[in-house]
């Protein structure tokens, strides 16, 4: 699909993301200015505060943004997922340049001018308002300009906490190796940053008293810019309120990969069909969906039993699916007041894959069958598989595998590496859509080494009590999706680049849900 064609198909969504992006930046800069400028003024009056306050603001700036989001999520009032957390983080990032430039600007006022002001009998407030602030304004606006450009960049990461914005396209593009998504997200963010820079640059020039007076056109452009900002601001702040349906309201989350978002969308569509209003908080990074579920921001999200068992409950992996499911169900109920739905009917476990041609040639069915061949083979594994408890070290030991070479590479690239004969064995995801397309063969885990990763929904108990439709939908979806079917759905999105909503609607129709 050409980029142009992509834009034609997706411009409404792109515009929505651009709007979310502008709103996040606009509000956070507004808040940062109203905190930062007074703080900066205070620091010019109380020299002793200068070091500590600028120090703290400096430290804020050095915390990696993803880590800062991580710290904020568990906090009450300012944390959680969604735009509130993103705004807090953005404000914290924007403070330093604004405070620092306010201090620099005011202290940089020509000493003779300040002395003259005091000697004329101006009070401190008059010196500040009539002399220092107007003369420092150019430098202060530079600070705001820097903060805004930084904020446009950092806001792309806000997508990871479900705050929306252009980061949604960037993250999705990275995951799906879709250059159109990446380009649309990154280009739009770059254009926004440039526009903000240009506009604030014009504003800055209005405050230069040493140079030539600004040309009329730049004042016109500035006025137009201000009108635009105000219009966007008003338009954005008037965003439609949440319409509470009589059938209840449910916030659905998902992890940041195609299958998770797809399962969440299936749930969302089915609930909406039953008159429930749905809030979609998809594509959340790391452990965010779990945290959000436990603190009540989310009502449900799709998960895998093995992940809950090892990553959340910190148990050593075991192979028995029944035992894992029961243990997870019981512990989630007692520890988190969360119910585990019946299995959806498929597992997304590690799939040990070889080329179909090799499997037929050597008559391979199981991993044990392949063991004698591995000393001549090279293997390609994702970073995750190389490092996790149930990954490569335990796996190679369990089957006594020795490889000629082991390459650590990006998971998504291993499929192509295998089919193009760069490597001979990989550990993929069992529901990966490309398995069938690339004629890859999954070897059976005959020693039951890998823990079961049955797909389930995790739902808060209070949500089940509040929204009766949930139980009905969960019952319908029990054992409703086979591994092959999941592979096909994933491929529709990742391989054929189709719209997930469309794919889900089609599937629901075909199943008569």
């Amino acid at each position, binding site marked *: 699909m050409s980029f142009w064609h992509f834009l034609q198909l997706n411009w409404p969504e792109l515009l929505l993301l651009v709007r979310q992006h502008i709103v996040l930046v606009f509000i956070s800069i507004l808040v940062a200015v109203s905190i930062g400028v007074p703080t900066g003024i205070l620091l010019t009056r109380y020299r002793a505060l200068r070091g500590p306050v600028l120090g703290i603001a400096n430290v804020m700036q050095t915390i990696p943004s993803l880590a800062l989001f991580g710290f904020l999520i568990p906090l009450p009032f300012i944390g959680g997922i969604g735009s509130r957390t993103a705004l807090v983080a953005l404000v914290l990032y924007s403070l330093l340049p604004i405070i620092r430039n306010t201090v620099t600007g005011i202290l940089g006022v020509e000493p*003779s001018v300040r*002395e*003259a002001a*005091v000697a*004329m*009998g101006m009070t401190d407030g008059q010196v500040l308002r009539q002399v220092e602030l*107007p*003369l420092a304004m150019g430098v202060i606006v530079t600070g705001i300009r820097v903060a805004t450009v930084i904020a446009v960049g950092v806001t792309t990461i806000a997508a990871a906490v479900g705050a929306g914005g252009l980061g949604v396209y960037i993250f999705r593009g990275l995951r799906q190796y879709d250059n159109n998504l990446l380009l649309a997200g990154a280009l739009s963010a770059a254009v926004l940053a440039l526009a903000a820079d240009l506009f604030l640059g014009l504003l800055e020039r209005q405050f230069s*008293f*040493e140079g030539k007076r600004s040309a009329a056109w730049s004042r016109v452009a500035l006025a137009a810019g201000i009108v635009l900002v105000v219009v966007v601001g008003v338009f954005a702040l008037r965003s439609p309120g949440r319409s509470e349906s009589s059938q209840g309201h449910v916030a659905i989350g998902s992890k940041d990969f195609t299958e998770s978002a797809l399962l969440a969308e299936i749930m969302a569509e089915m609930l909406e069909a039953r008159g429930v209003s749905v809030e979609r908080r998809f594509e959340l990074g790391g452990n965010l969906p779990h945290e959000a579920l436990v603190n009540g921001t989310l009502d449900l999200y799709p998960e895998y039993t093995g992940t809950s068992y090892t990553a959340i409950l910190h148990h050593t992996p075991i192979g028995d699916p029944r035992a894992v499911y029961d243990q997870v169900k019981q512990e989630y109920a007692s520890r988190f007041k969360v119910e585990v739905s019946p299995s959806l009917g498929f597992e997304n476990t590690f799939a040990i894959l070889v080329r179909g041609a090799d499997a037929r040639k050597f008559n391979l069915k199981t991993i044990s069958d392949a063991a004698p061949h591995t000393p001549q083979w090279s293997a390609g594994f994702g970073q995750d598989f190389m490092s996790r408890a149930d990954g490569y070290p335990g796996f190679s030991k369990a089957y006594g595998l020795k490889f000629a070479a082991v390459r650590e590479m990006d998971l998504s690239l291993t499929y192509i590496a295998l089919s193009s004969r760069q490597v001979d064995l990989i550990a993929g995801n069992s529901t990966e859509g490309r398995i069938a397309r690339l004629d890859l063969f999954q070897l059976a885990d005959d020693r039951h080494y890998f823990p079961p990763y049955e797909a389930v929904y995790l739902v808060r108990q209070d949500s089940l009590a509040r929204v009766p439709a949930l139980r009905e939908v969960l019952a319908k979806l029990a054992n409703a999706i086979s591994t092959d079917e999941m592979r096909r759905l994933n491929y529709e999105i990742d391989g054929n680049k189709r719209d997930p909503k469309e794919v889900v609607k089609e599937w629901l129709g075909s199943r008569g849900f």
Partner: protein
Amino acid sequence: MAAPFVRNMPDSKMGRPRSAAPTITPVKISLVEFHNVTFSLPAAANIISDLNLTVERGETLVLLGESGCGKTTTLKLVNRLLTPTGGEVRVEGKSTTAWDPIALRRRIGYVIQEGGLFPHFTIARNVGLVPALAGWDQTRIMERVRELLSLVGLDPDRFADRYPRELSGGQRQRVGVARALAADPPLLLLDEPFGALDPLTRASLQNEFADLTSRLGKTAILVTHDVREALILARRIGLMHKGQLLLLETPERFLNSDHPQARAYLDTLKIDDGGKQ
């Protein structure tokens, strides 16, 4: 009240009587008095040591000295940009620490090198600053601004709406003087006001300034390192050195002084053929 400081007033010409004496005290009160004033910064040698000095109404007193001698500090002690660490400075008989600093400063015009004009204000707004702070109405301020600009030799129609950067150094200095005079303060403080100007502009401004102060009957304290300027402008010259007042003489007596510091200054005049008035 001023009696103990007679030794600082050797010249009989001081204290020209003025009709509009602002106090009813029978004893004449000097406009500015320094009483044993010391000024120092923490952990440093004194910048001013035991300074005694009175400035009489209507006179122009020039403090002459090399840079670092404490003459600018002396000036800033008058309008309380600095407060003495010892002794006291009195303005109109009242210690500067007893004055409300804002009220004190609005009674004192202040002119510094390059004028210290506000670059973001027009010339009119710069000149009208103190009247505006004092709450004058806009028409009265504009009248006063036009009057003052004419007084310092600038055409109000040409200059009122310009910004300081659009003016030459000499023009800016004139605006600085106009601004200091705006609210008609009884006292002017001038810190090397003509120092940054070219010799021709400086000479003409010096003459105009001497003319202006005598016409308006203003009291002025002017700080300079230029002995020629001191001789042209001063009613009395105070020679300062390392924070102390060495001499306080009329220009005539200063010219004949045999004090070594005074002679050193006067020797500089001979090089360029002694340009006395």
